[in-house]
């Protein structure tokens, strides 16, 4: 069978949501950002809330997220996305506000904004991409870099005695009274993509209830920053990232269904 026999309308199993723009993604092949962008936009489309959703892009690889998402968006200073979302949600309580942040943005420079937005229980959705490295600036150590893991600013591996320990931000925010739903997912297999989408959908649905912050971590790869092939990076992620950052719900609302 040749390619032309496969690419036919009747074999079409995936259609790009119109909420993703036609601009080519700037992410490296194999990176989880593109998939996560798609899942968020699919959820917004399926919920019919395009006109009511405002997103906040961070500084990092996804700084240009607003180029790919066909909704109103703001681009925040490094780490400050939850502060922007706080103001917007309080001024427009009927809107859906989400931030999209990497580990450096959310768990290093933006730690205060993250913790306090979650602790106040701002009714926003925080999507946290954790790949344990600074991707955009070229592979420097992140707050979530694993012990022993190499980075350009930890060329011999993260020595926790010198460089401190990786921060489990998601477990941390789950302790706060203001968070309503806290979960950790991945997008490296079709099954995980489906679970992640359900989690994102839950987060957006829960935010209708005005009961607090919904926090979705996506453990992702960074094959460029990790200096690996995409398949190898996914395997490495399963073997090293998941034991330290276990997938699954961390804080689930005590309700049966939304």
């Amino acid at each position, binding site marked *: 069978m040749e390619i032309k026999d496969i690419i036919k309308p009747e074999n079409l199993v995936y259609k790009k949501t119109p909420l993703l723009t036609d601009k080519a993604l700037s992410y490296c092949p194999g990176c989880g950002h593109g998939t996560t962008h798609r899942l968020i936009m699919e959820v917004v489309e399926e919920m019919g809330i395009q006109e009511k959703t405002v997103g906040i892009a961070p500084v990092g690889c996804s700084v240009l997220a607003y180029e790919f998402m066909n909704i*109103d968006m703001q681009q925040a200073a490094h780490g400050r996305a939850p502060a922007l979302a706080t103001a917007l949600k309080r001024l*427009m309580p009927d809107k859906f506000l989400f931030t999209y942040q990497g580990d450096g943005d959310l768990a290093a420079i933006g730690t205060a904004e993250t913790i306090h937005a979650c602790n106040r229980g701002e009714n926003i959705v925080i999507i946290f991409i954790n790949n344990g490295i600074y991707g955009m600036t070229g592979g420097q150590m992140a707050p979530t870099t694993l012990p022993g893991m190499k980075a350009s600013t930890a060329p011999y591996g993260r020595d926790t005695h010198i460089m401190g320990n990786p921060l489990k931000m998601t477990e941390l925010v789950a302790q706060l009274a203001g968070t309503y739903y806290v979960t950790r997912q991945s997008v490296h297999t079709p099954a995980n993509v489906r679970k992640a989408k359900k989690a994102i959908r839950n987060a957006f649905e829960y935010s209708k209830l005005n009961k607090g912050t919904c926090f979705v971590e996506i453990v992702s790869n960074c094959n460029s920053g990790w200096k690996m092939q995409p398949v190898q990076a996914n395997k490495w992620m399963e073997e090293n990232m998941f034991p330290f950052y276990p997938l699954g719900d961390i804080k689930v609302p005590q309700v049966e269904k939304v």
Partner: protein
Amino acid sequence: MGELKLMKGNEAFAEACIRAGADAYFGYPITPQSEVLEYLMAQKPYETTGMVVLQAESEVSAINMCYGAGGAGFKVVTSSSSPGISLKQEGISYMAGAELPLLVLNVVRGGPGLGDIQPSQSDYFQATKGGGHGDYRLYVLAPSSVQEMSDFVPIAFEMAFKYRNPVMILSDGVIGQMMEKVELFDPIPRRTIEQVEKQCPWATTGKKANRERNIITSLDLDPYKQEKHNYHLRDKYEQMKREDVRYEEIQTSDAEYLLVAYGSSARICQKTVDLARAEGIKLGLLRAITLFPFPSVRLKELSKQVKGMLAVEMSLGQMVEDVKLAVDCKIPVEHFGRTGGVIHTPSEVLDALKKQIIK
């Protein structure tokens, strides 16, 4: 006549924000401006006008809340004092770059560093030359009374939206803390969301089916586009210089010498003018009300009339540089002022005038 009240400058500012139809205030406590947030929380405007008031976890967070609100076209306010304003500079730069309206009040205290909590005017450079990184300016208003702490609020909002640019009210610990009689203006209702969207078609209030998505950003990786954007910003600053310079002249018509001052220093200099006139010295005062744009054109005209100018400010000499630029070395221009939170007296100013200018 509007309602008369005896108020602190900080309180008059807070009350004026509510009355001017502000949509939100985000701040963090710091002396000598904490009364702004205290007054707002006591008044509870969120129960009357619907204005959002929130004490943020830091000045950094507060200014970024302002970025979010300004990006959706809301009338948003923050306030702080010198060290806190330094922390806000990154956010102010982002807002200037993204062309967002903002009202920021700086109740200046002595510095550098943590300095002290006494009044000062040592943040002039920071306020008028940019403050944060990049090529940008703020529209800067300098009140010299509690009345102006109120009156300048609607002007500041008007300028912030006219130019889509942050506006700073540069006050100081004297004006913020002292109590004076103030005539309050009648309340202006907050705009509805429809009015916000009409006034600000660029606002991120949610993408409507009949328009393209709105994006608020200060990023452009293409240097040629960034340069073009910066030229556009420059055009706005040039327009401010043409259309919105504000100043006040006191006894300048026959003046042979001129004091140049702003804010509380201008209040002190008014007394110096009286003292000098009593001695037969023909002294006048130009009070700069906008520090950017600076009243350079008028100062240049006055330089043809007077023999010398003394820039009087509570700093080691910052505004004096703009006075010198305005008169272009045609006449002597000197600086006098106390610093570090010390306030000069009218007679100290007169002595300095005699020693440094009249000679």
